[in-house]
């Protein structure tokens, strides 16, 4: 059973490739410590797209969607918070 059209899946694939390009491009811009947060934000968005569309979490109830997106958000927070240390070492 196709619960998502091929057109939509193709659109998501294009978005993922485009976001990969954005990640590479952003790495050439010197934002200081914020480079990490930008990369994490893009990566989190990509992971969310994969979960919602490719892994069909999007057709579940709102609570399940929120739970899984929460895990991605949390992972990015965990990685991001280590930069309170790494980015500020003397």
């Amino acid at each position, binding site marked *: 059973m196709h619960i998502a059209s091929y057109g939509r899946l193709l659109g998501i694939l294009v978005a993922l490739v485009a976001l990969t390009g954005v990640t590479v491009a952003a790495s050439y811009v010197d934002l200081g410590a914020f480079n990490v947060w930008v990369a994490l934000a893009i990566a989190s968005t990509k992971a969310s797209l994969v979960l919602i569309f490719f892994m069909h979490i999007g057709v579940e109830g709102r*609570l*399940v969607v929120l*739970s899984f997106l929460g*895990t991605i958000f*949390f*992972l990015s*927070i*965990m990685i991001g*918070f*280590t930069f*309170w*240390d*790494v*980015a*500020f*070492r*003397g």
Partner: protein
Amino acid sequence: MEKVPSFFDTPSPPRYSGVLSWLITTDHKRIGLMYLWVILFWFVVAMFLGGVMRLELMFRGETLMGPSSYNALFTLHGVIMIFLFIIPGIPAIFGNFFLPIQIGTDDVFFPRLNLFSWYLYVAGGGLALATLFIGGPPDTGWTFYVPFSVGTHSNVSTAVFAAFVLGMASMMTGINFVTTIHRMRHEKMGWFQMPLFTWSLYATSWVQILATPVVSITLLLIIAERFLGVGLFDPAKGGDPILYQHLFWMYSHPAVYIMILPGMGVISEILPVFARKPIFGYKAIVFSSLAIAIAGSLVWAHHMYTSGMSDTAVFVFSLLTFIVAIPSAIKVFSWVATLYKGSVLMTPPLFFALCFIYLFSVGGLTGLVLGAAGTDIHVHDTHFVVAHFHFTMFGGTGFAFFAALHHWWPKMFGRMYHFKRAYWAAVFITFGFLLHYVPMFVIGLQGMPRRYYDYVAEFETGNFVAGFGAAFMLVGLVLMLGNLMVSLRQGAVAASDPWGGTTLEWTIPSPPPLHNFIKEPEVLDYPYDFTQVLKTRRDDVEVS
């Protein structure tokens, strides 16, 4: 209540009998009991290891063992107590047994995965035990800090792999519980009709799912460092030893909440039952569980104030640490308020629960001394820290575990235990606990470092007194476990609801039948409604 065969008499799958019917069972109750016996075995082993350490510390100089044996002993004591007792204790035993019953269903969502988790847990324990005999027991402490864990010649790799396997077991249990609560809750049970023990398991399971993979990968990285020398944590090769500490505590601090949240759930079940009163602040307790799970996952670096990380990180993590105190305090206030003007019925589970509140509060408040960077620097790595985490982990989770044992024992085995012996055991354990750990606060403040087998003369009195505390505790623990074991043969037959509880496990026979419910469970609008109990049995304990 209608007499039906219990799960002891009806194996699942049905064609097997004897030991095999247990070893291949998919019944959540049998798996819960299998966890109970193995976890109790490890608890007793680690308890005696702790006793031997304390005996060594009672007198100055080398009495029972030298430094390397002592190092191995405290490592094993820590690894076993943390990974094999406290983390799985309440969720794996009581969660497995009671979560499906409390939400009105017949099993967990993945019964085979549940059994597989048990096997992983046993395998992990076996590996931890194997380190004693293969290549010398590990001497790093349960934290496996680099660079020592990479350079030491003791058998760190096996111990680390054991922790990895145990982490897998924990994660699978977490996945099973979250899925079960989402998918198998009784159709009439909304989120805010769930008992608080189940809520605490829900919050805990999310932490298990999210945080455990981090430490699992980190532990494998230690093995990679040891065998391949990849240099991730070795500064000489461009690595960062502090990165290891970040990765380790990213799991291991949330793990503290994996340990304590189910314990808090147990207390939230016990207090309303014996106060004959609805729990104060049901929703506040639910949200504080979730808040603890979330905020507790963001404070890991408060273990690292003296590690050399940036001052900004010290400031941020100190601030975050103080935020966790808020939901913890909400719970304590709610418990005390539940007792206020209640119709209190004193029983052994309530006695343990009251001891929990006191000991956990002391543990929490001394945690603030360590959460504040200024004071932490003075007491870091001293016996003050040892006393603090034993107050939270043993005085907290340990006492909640004992409370849960006494609360649900009649339901699990259909037998009542001897009350007087249980009270005496609780008094011995609590008195011994205080005599053991309070002197540690004092000698810790005086500067006695942790993890040393010997000390200077000024710490002599504190260590000597603490030894007697340990002896009292051991006597109490042996009495408590003995009393429970004896009850299996000699105890009076328990009624289906000996205490006057209102959650669903008290509506079914003791011990429960294979599929838990013999008729459709009646879900209350509010899980702690004692109107009926107060009318019929205000202050009695019912035996069959």
